[in-house]
């Protein structure tokens, strides 16, 4: 725990005292304290919905606290707007992407702080300066590229460059790596270390405890909106963090139970998608098998899953499920064949946030269980929902709760529940644990395993190396829209995956 008279004994740069924040329905923060020293990387961790993002939004002037005060350099400050926060030198990289993708990279980096000449925007300076920050995060994009032309990962790097450009004293990063690959993440860590050298304080939020261990000087843990303790540099260990976060032990890696692999469930042959029209992929998923798909961001993995699920039409190739070739005109065809997809972006593609849990879970099954020609089977819907809520241990006051009021992990469980109630034969998962806390992550792993045991074929895309390594029976690695290699369980290693992911070029400065 934080020993009060610590090594460097410097007065805190930023101090949060007794902050409380309520939303309709939840108390997101309750009497929370936090102190940040000059030039440290301070990790804030906690389960989904613990209040991390809310606390950061309070600091960044996005949401005013109900009670409590914030002190900067020992002086009470009143952060009533983002503008004030920026002026005080506090800059926040939000958990969700926040870019105006109709503008170019440079415009986004300097949005709200445009250099001016004679009252007009100084475009030349924006171009020059943003290049500097792009170089800092090693993003080789021109400042005049439209943001909408970038992949999600690259957009995240732009967001980071934007935060850097503030030259903040306190830089807050809310899960910056959730859409980055290992390589990009490493780049980010280097930037963070540099900034720390320069005396910038960094508040770092992540569900990847490995990163926290690697980076953080101190850790503050939140649980259910309250302080659950803190750790100093030498105390930062996986088990202690987990202990504080969830109040019980969870082992570092999920231990797979060995199980048998059956007949081929999903066969993909020479599949070509819009992202890489001339590159084709082929592979097979067997019953009870977990096939991991690794690759760099933009390797075309999401596109591939979408094509298999019939969201986008494929350019060529064949998809067979249990030896039957599918004609995929829409998702319905895929669902009818026994496929299910947990998409990458749960808020946009997985859930209808303003609808209740029950209706969300019931949505894909409505047409299967209808009465008569088209009447709703509400009983069935209710039963399915309560069964799933119990089975997946979704934390909610009622099955009518709107999906938007749940924490990220519980939202992800609803997306899973929605598909499990359809009893799929093949489950496609796209980054199933992105932004999900360690407890929920373990449960998702447990669910995946249970399904595999029941003979479901699982194809999962993940950018988290640990996850790929620990969960897969077999891994295919994608590079530029094609499968660049396949690794059996005993061949799996970080180096091997990275080698294939970067297109068989020797792994350079990575890791």
């Amino acid at each position: 725990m934080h020993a009060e008279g610590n090594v460097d004994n410097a007065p805190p740069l930023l101090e949060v005292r007794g902050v409380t924040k309520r939303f309709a329905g939840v108390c997101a923060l309750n009497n929370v304290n936090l102190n940040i020293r000059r030039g440290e990387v301070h990790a804030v961790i906690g389960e989904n919905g613990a209040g991390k993002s809310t606390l950061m939004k309070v600091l960044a002037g996005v949401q005013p606290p109900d009670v409590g005060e914030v002190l900067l350099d020992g002086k009470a400050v009143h952060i009533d707007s983002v503008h004030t926060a920026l002026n005080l030198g506090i800059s926040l990289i939000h958990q969700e992407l926040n870019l105006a993708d109709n503008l170019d990279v440079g415009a986004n980096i300097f949005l709200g702080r445009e250099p001016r000449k004679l009252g007009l925007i100084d475009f030349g300076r924006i171009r020059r300066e943003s290049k500097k920050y792009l170089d800092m995060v090693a993003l080789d994009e021109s400042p005049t590229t439209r943001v909408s032309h970038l992949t999600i990962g690259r957009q995240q790097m732009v967001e980071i460059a934007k935060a850097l450009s503030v030259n903040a004293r306190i830089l807050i990063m809310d899960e910056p790596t959730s859409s980055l690959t290992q390589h990009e993440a490493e780049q980010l860590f280097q930037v963070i270390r540099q900034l720390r050298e320069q005396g910038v304080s960094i508040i770092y939020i992540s569900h990847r405890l490995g990163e926290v261990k690697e980076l953080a000087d101190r850790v503050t843990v939140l649980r259910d909106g309250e302080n659950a303790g803190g750790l100093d540099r030498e105390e930062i260990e996986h088990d202690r963090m987990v202990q504080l976060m969830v109040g019980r032990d969870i082992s570092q890696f999920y231990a797979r139970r060995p199980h048998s692999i059956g007949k081929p469930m999903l066969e993909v042959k020479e599949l070509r998608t819009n992202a890489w029209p001339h590159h084709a992929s082929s592979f097979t998923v067997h019953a009870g098998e977990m096939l991991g798909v690794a690759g760099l961001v933009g390797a075309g993995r999401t596109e591939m899953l979408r094509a298999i699920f019939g969201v986008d039409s494929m350019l060529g190739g064949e998809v067979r499920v249990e030896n039957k070739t599918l004609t995929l005109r829409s998702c319905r065809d895929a669902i009818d064949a026994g496929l299910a997809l947990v998409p990458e972006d749960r808020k946009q593609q997985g859930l209808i946030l303003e609808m209740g849990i029950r209706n969300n879970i019931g949505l894909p099954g409505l047409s299967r269980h209808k009465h008569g020609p088209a009447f709703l089977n509400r009983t069935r819907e209710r039963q399915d929902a309560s069964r799933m809520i119990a089975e997946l241990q979704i934390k909610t006051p009622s099955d009518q709760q709107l999906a938007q009021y749940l924490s990220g992990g519980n939202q992800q469980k609803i997306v899973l529940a929605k598909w499990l109630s359809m009893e799929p034969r093949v489950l496609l998962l796209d980054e199933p644990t992105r932004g999900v806390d360690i407890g929920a992550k373990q449960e998702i792993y447990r669910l995946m395993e249970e399904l595999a045991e029941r003979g479901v074929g699982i194809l999962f895309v993940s950018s988290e190396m640990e996850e790929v390594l620990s969960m897969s029976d077999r891994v295919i690695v994608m590079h530029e829209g094609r499968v660049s290699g396949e690794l059996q369980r005993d061949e799996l290693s970080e180096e091997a995956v990275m080698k294939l992911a970067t297109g068989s070029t020797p792994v350079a400065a990575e890791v």
Partner: protein
Amino acid sequence: MKKILGIFGLLVFICVMTALMSDRFLTEFNVENLIRRTALFGIISIGASFVIITSGIDLSIGSVVCLIGCLLPWMLVEKELGVPLSLLLVVGISLAIGLSHGLLITKMKLQPFVVTLCGLLLYRGITRGLVQDQTQGFKSGFSTLRELSQGQMPLPGTEFGIPNPCLILLVVAILAIIFLNFTIYGRYMLALGRNEEATRYSGINTDRMIILAYVICGMLSGLGGMLFVLDVGSAQPVDFGSFYELYAIAAAVLGGCSLRGGEGTIIGVVIGAAVMQVLKNSITLIDWIPTNIEYAVIGAVILGGVVVDELVKRFAAKRRAMAQANQ
């Protein structure tokens, strides 16, 4: 339910105030008229609300009313096509219009506002060209057909009768309520109005649902146009049904539909339509309100309605938060 309460309260309030200020308001004759007008506008408003629920908009409603309103007497009187064929054509045209809106919006990915704005211009223009700007009327014929709008079903044991359009509205509204709340399609529409992408990922053919919504709207606009012209007796292509889309959309909004999609109740929409018709009636019946500020009164009432609705919502949210904090 709560949403309906507000607009229902407003309707009751306006009715009570008017009844207090004019002893003629509650006469059978007036009530009957009000019911008939509400029914006519209610039908097109229900159409509008389907489109709005899928987070679309239909600006062409008034022009479809014009097209059908002019074509029906034109086909019957000028072209002497006979009632069955004419009705068939009316149905076919309304359907084709709704269908083409839906297809343009889903398959061509055009914005509903743009597509239906073009519709607004197009259908009125076509009507004017087709009937050469001539007023089209039934010339005192077709009285059986016109009973559809003008007749009434006597209530046994009373002098009072329910106007036929009201019966039609009743049927339409009940079907709409069942469709929206008790069938999977209604659920799909509500879901896709909130989040089309997620609905599509759930295996629902959202394009088909959106097309269906525009088809329903087109059909109900056509039905409305038919009933309007059967009621009024004649139609002039240049101004028949002009601005009715705005009345229909306003009724839907008053009735609790959000233009952001995914929300709305049929009963609320019908009450919304009633509010506007009663308002117009009140302005005529109450002597000291000059009739030329009619638009201003309607505008003010709609604005007041949504402002109060918003304030009540905020107040409720605040009270809920307080209550929780005190627990």
